[in-house]
């Protein structure tokens, strides 16, 4: 090693005795923020390997995958690696869009290269220190199983013994990554790091955080969005057992009690009224009618246009049109919304399971003037996230509640009914397709009109180009020479939140259902039609071909079974699915689903499999029978009884194949969701001849 002749930097290489620390830097950060605190990898004299990374663990398995990547490059034992979350959001933890959030299926694909680089730097420093200790050339040493090893001499020095010497060395600027043949820990199924504690009950979820002298908060919030507290009589519940304080918060109140049950009884009994708003008369049918009317609007700026649409339609052998719609959905994370705070005027400490660290930071600053340096966020395990746990409302409630009881820690817990009824839903959307087909079944033209809210309004610059509404349409996978897309924006007075796979969750259904309609109009097999209309080099082809093979698509379906197929790209991964349905009278049954995914290198194939299976279950439950609807401004659904997500007795067999094509890393947590509804409804069409142009199937009497 010739570090002295190389550009080196010392920033982040901790001089602290007994600890070796190397920063994990995204490429841009090395230039702009060489000394900022950020993600880093650390080895202690006790051999412990800890990595500070800003991705929470909400079930997606990211911490295990990150440990595999680090351990492989470093030469450590993966089971000894601990992934910890930073307690203060900082600039170095931000995703490409500028916030520290655990979203967008970024956990592995965003951090993979920087993690490898830091681990390689650390390995080279440990080897250099080992070479000095043993008086041998560095190239005779290797890092294996948490030790620097000299194979010929039969010597092994644990990392921890070299930490002090290594921490005095410069961090190599140009680390040498391990060659492919030494990459034996990624690409292999290893068990999750967190399985045992989740099986014994020892895992501490946000809900389980317990602090000395902790009180509990139950909420009572305005039932209509946009409404706030009109009048509140705190004395109406002050005498109730266990009640400590009643705290007015934005849009409602937190009742603080010695137990959550007591607080909840009082919150329900609280004499509180809410302001009238123009949303008091809001009904879902009227909202949907307004969105539907926007499909006809003429004053919408074009988002995307290529080719000669008019000419192509004029020359088309046939033109096919169809409208589709999806309802609002709730996230219903298994762990209801909660946050624990211990807060005084100048210091706020939170214990919570959040995907949205920077959103909490910004929300507390905006609402309560809490500055970043006053804020500590301890991140516990999340009992699911799915895009719901990115917001700040419960943190504001907990901070206000704790301050109101003299800085005593307060754990605010929403009841399931609060979770279902207080919004942050997946948006309702509608779409109109018009497509021209050539004589031989090629899509020559497509005109797409989206109508509905614009979830990403804050980041939209031009022409309503909103990825939160339009991904999957902006980048439609098919080779369509004449194509136009616009979005008639219809704001709805309901708080929205990304729902696993965001826009792809509906655009996957819209596009893949309509493509099936085109295949039928062209008189072609749905698979053959897709392959004929995809670009020659499309990554959709290998997964389609693989899933067709798994389902024996070219063979006859088993007696009584009908099949539908689809393929969707999202988060730089491609997933194709074949859904098998049987009809039980009027009801659709789904005994089996086949899925093939290309996510680049599968770091942990077993986790890829279970993520895809879980995505299929989630999307199937949503497509069959759940929706959120409003009547009189209030959410009609309350709990799992009237928001019936899928249970085990309806879970299909789900076969997952991983297709590796050498593509860059893609996401895994979300891409299994988008193809399901389209493949399902295409199978229903094959079974019944009925096109399902709105979800859920229950609205059509089919589930």
């Amino acid at each position, binding site marked *: 090693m010739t570090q002295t002749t190389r550009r080196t930097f010392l920033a982040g290489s901790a001089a602290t005795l007994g600890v070796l620390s190397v920063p994990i830097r995204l490429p841009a950060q090395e230039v702009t923020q060489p000394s900022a605190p950020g993600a880093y990898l650390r080895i202690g004299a006790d051999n412990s390997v800890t990595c500070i990374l800003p991705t929470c663990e909400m079930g997606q398995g990211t911490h295990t995958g990150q440990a595999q990547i680090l351990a492989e490059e470093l030469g450590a034992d993966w089971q000894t690696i601990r992934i910890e979350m930073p307690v203060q959001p900082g600039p170095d933890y931000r995703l490409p869009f500028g916030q520290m959030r655990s979203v967008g299926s970024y956990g592995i694909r965003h951090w993979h290269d920087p993690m490898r680089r830091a681990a390689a730097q650390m390995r080279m420093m440990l080897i250099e220190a080992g070479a000095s200790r043993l008086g041998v050339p560095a190239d005779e040493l290797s890092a294996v199983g948490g030790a620097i090893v000299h194979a010929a001499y039969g010597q092994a020095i644990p990392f921890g013994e070299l930490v002090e010497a290594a921490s005095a060395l410069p961090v190599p600027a140009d680390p040498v990554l391990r060659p492919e043949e030494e990459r034996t820990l990624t690409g292999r199924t290893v068990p999750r790091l967190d399985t045992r504690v989740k*099986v014994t009950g020892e895992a501490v979820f946000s809900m389980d955080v317990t602090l000395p002298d902790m009180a509990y908060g139950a909420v009572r919030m305005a039932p209509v969005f946009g409404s706030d507290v009109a009048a509140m009589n705190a004395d109406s519940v002050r005498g109730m057992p266990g009640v400590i304080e009643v705290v007015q918060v934005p849009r409602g109140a937190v009742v603080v009690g010695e137990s959550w049950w007591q607080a909840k009884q009082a919150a329900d009994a609280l004499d509180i009224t809410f302001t009238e708003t123009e949303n008091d008369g809001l009904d879902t049918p009227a909202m949907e009618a307004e969105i539907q009317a926007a499909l006809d609007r003429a004053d919408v700026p074009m988002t995307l246009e290529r080719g000669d649409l008019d000419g192509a339609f004029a020359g088309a052998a046939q033109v096919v049109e169809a409208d589709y719609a999806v309802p609002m959905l709730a996230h219903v994370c298994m762990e209801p919304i909660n946050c624990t705070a211990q807060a005084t005027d100048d210091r706020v400490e939170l214990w919570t399971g959040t995907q949205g660290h920077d959103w909490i930071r910004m929300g507390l600053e905006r609402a309560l003037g809490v500055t970043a340096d006053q804020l500590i966020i301890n991140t516990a395990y999340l009992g699911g996230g799915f895009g719901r746990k990115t917001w700040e409302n419960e943190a504001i409630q907990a901070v206000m509640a704790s301050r109101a009881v003299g800085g005593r820690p307060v754990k605010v817990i929403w009841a399931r009914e609060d979770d279902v009824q207080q919004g942050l839903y997946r948006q309702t959307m509608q779409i109109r397709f018009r497509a021209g087909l050539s004589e031989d079944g090629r899509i020559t033209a497509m005109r797409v009109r989206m109508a509905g809210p614009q979830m990403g309004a804050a980041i939209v610059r031009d022409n309503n180009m909103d990825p939160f509404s339009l991904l999957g349409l902006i980048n439609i996978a098919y080779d369509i020479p004449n194509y136009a897309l616009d979005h008639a924006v219809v704001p709805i007075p309901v708080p929205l939140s990304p729902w696993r796979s965001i826009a792809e969750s509906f655009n996957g259904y819209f596009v893949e259902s309509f493509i099936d309609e085109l295949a039928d109009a062209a008189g072609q097999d749905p698979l053959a039609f897709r392959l004929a209309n995809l670009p020659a080099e499309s990554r959709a082809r290998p997964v389609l071909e693989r899933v067709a093979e798994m389902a024996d698509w070219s063979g006859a379906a088993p007696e009584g079974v009908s099949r539908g197929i689809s393929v969707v790209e999202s988060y730089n991964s491609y997933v194709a699915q074949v859904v098998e349905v049987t009809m039980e009278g009027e009801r659709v049954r789904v005994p089996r689903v086949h899925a093939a995914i290309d996510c680049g290198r599968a770091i942990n194939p077993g986790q890829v499999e279970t993520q895809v299976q879980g995505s299929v279950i989630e999307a199937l439950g949503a497509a069959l029978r759940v929706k959120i609807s409003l009547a009189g401004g209030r959410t009609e659904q309350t709990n799992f009884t009237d928001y019936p997500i899928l249970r085990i007795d309806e879970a299909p067999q789900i076969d997952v194949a991983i297709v590796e094509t050498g593509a860059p890393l893609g996401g895994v947590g979300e891409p299994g969701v988008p193809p399901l509804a389209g493949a399902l409804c295409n199978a229903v069409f094959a079974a019944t001849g009925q096109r399902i142009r709105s979800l859920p199937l229950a609205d059509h009497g089919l589930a």
Partner: protein
Amino acid sequence: MTDFTLNGSGVSVEADPDTPLLWILRERMGLTGTKFGCGIGACGACTVHLDGQAVPSCSIPLSVAEGAEVTTIEGLSEGGLHPVQEAWIEIDVPQCGYCQTGQIMATAAMLAQVPEPTDEDIDSYLAGNICRCGVYPRIRAAAKRAAELSRT
């Protein structure tokens, strides 16, 4: 005062007898392995054993526990892991894991009654336990593996 046996030891709890057992376990006894999910007995996250039966502790008033034997995930196995837990680890079942202690308690109660469960048995006994992450395929496999481990 409500007296019952909790994970093999006698306990006395002074609380409103209408308080759901769930909150007594979590807040008074510090046994947070039993989870709050829905509050109406519709999701199974709070499943415990009451005299050997799997019940949703969110919907069982403390008074009902009087004189009963209550077992939570923390007391499922007196030493080491219960075969159901061993199977869950072997199959690497959990994702977020929040519902899993309830799934395990429901499975353990099922195996006590149905030592060799079929797919239909599993669907029937575990339909009360929602997994929002959708690890049902692995739960099925692990329930069968647990049955095997229980026999050896």
